[in-house]
């Protein structure tokens, strides 16, 4: 694990990369990293995130700045810009049920080839997917989602990079920390090793490649 400045860490991301971004309507999203992506005008991004948040918040800012080529999310209703770009075909959107999105990201992170979920059976979500029937019950075979980078937000990191999250800002962050080639964590606070006890660590240090500290705190 290495501590870098937001500028340095975002410089490593090529245009066209696939990014997972933590957060739920912007809560638990690494805001400094979002701003830095906009400053550096990273283009043609594929973004995996629960939702497109709001036009002035979370990954919503990336959408407004037209840096996103494709979005994989469960909900886009709080950011009108997303639907507008989608209708104009400027932005491709893949809508995934929230629980399925979480399991698909997790599957990539824990080395599963896929999972069978009852969610979406018989709805438009089923289109193009393999349906597997077991004991008379139907399931959709849903495939893993992996990414080049995961941009996550934690409350605290210790000197080794162990992370702990705060309340509902945890959401997708821990699973994204397992599902990307490079994991970048934005934290509010650095604490001594041991301040996050073994039972309190939410994401083990070995999963984290870079830590950046949000200077606003």
């Amino acid at each position: 694990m290495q501590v870098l400045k937001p500028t340095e860490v975002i410089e490593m991301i090529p245009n066209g990369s696939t990014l997972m971004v933590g957060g739920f309507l912007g809560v638990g999203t690494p805001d400094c990293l979002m701003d830095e992506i906009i400053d550096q005008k990273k283009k043609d991004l594929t973004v995996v995130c629960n939702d497109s948040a709001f036009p002035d918040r979370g990954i919503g800012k990336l959408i407004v700045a037209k840096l996103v080529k494709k979005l994989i999310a469960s909900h886009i209703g709080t950011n009108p810009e997303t639907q507008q770009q989608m209708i104009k075909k400027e932005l491709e959107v893949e809508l995934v049920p929230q629980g399925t999105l979480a399991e698909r990201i997790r599957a990539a992170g824990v080395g599963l080839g896929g999972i069978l979920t009852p969610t979406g059976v018989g709805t438009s979500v089923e289109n193009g997917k393999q349906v597997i029937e077991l004991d008379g019950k139907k399931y959709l075979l849903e495939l893993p989602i992996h990414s080049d980078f995961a941009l996550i937000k934690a409350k605290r990191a210790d000197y080794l990079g162990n992370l702990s999250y705060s309340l509902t800002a945890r959401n997708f962050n821990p699973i994204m920390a397992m599902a990307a080639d490079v994991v970048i964590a934005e934290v509010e606070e650095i604490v001594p090793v041991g301040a996050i006890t073994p039972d309190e660590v939410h994401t083990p240090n070995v999963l984290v490649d870079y830590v950046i500290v949000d200077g606003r705190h």
Partner: protein
Amino acid sequence: MNAKNLIAKRIALELKDGYLVNLGIGIPTLVANYTPEGVNIFFESENGIIGMGPVPQDGMENPDLVNASAKYVTAMPGSSCFDSTISFGLIRGGHLDVTVLGGLQVDEKGRLANWMIPGKMIPGMGGAMDLVTGAKRVIVSMTHTAKGKPKIVKKCTLPITSIRRIDLLVTEMAVIEPTENGLVLKEIAPGVTIDEVLKNTEAHLIIPENVPTMKVE
């Protein structure tokens, strides 16, 4: 009592001591205001919390503590937070006693449509498909009609949320229970006649001999 509060109050009667309950956006949120006295309910939110409490007083907001609409909430004593896989594991795994959701249409098979209007509004399904598929009991709250048009229809014309039959539908006019045999009119609202319900309903309703009035004072 206005329509929304009537619906919320009636649904609150369905909640029992110790239940784990998810309340959707809109009318469902109001249900929390009417939980019977002495009944201890654990409110859960998709973004990863059990034990959600009411809006905090001014100045006590924690940016990491929000509900699934990104509104500030409080956490009750004994609350717990978790990542999105656990959140949806609780929902899809059958640990959630009741989910209360809004609806656009419910049809004779008891199927719900509530996540998109093609060509017009595509917010995405968010957690709705998992909630309807996985909760032990699915209660839908909606106005009986929209701009004078029935929302309880023969067959959903909007994309359905799940093939699962919902357990109860509460409108400002009636309580309806979808069953294997069709939609059964269980209760009518104070001051409403069965004829009025039938006039505002496209789907066939099974009318038992005795249809009591909703027990909401």
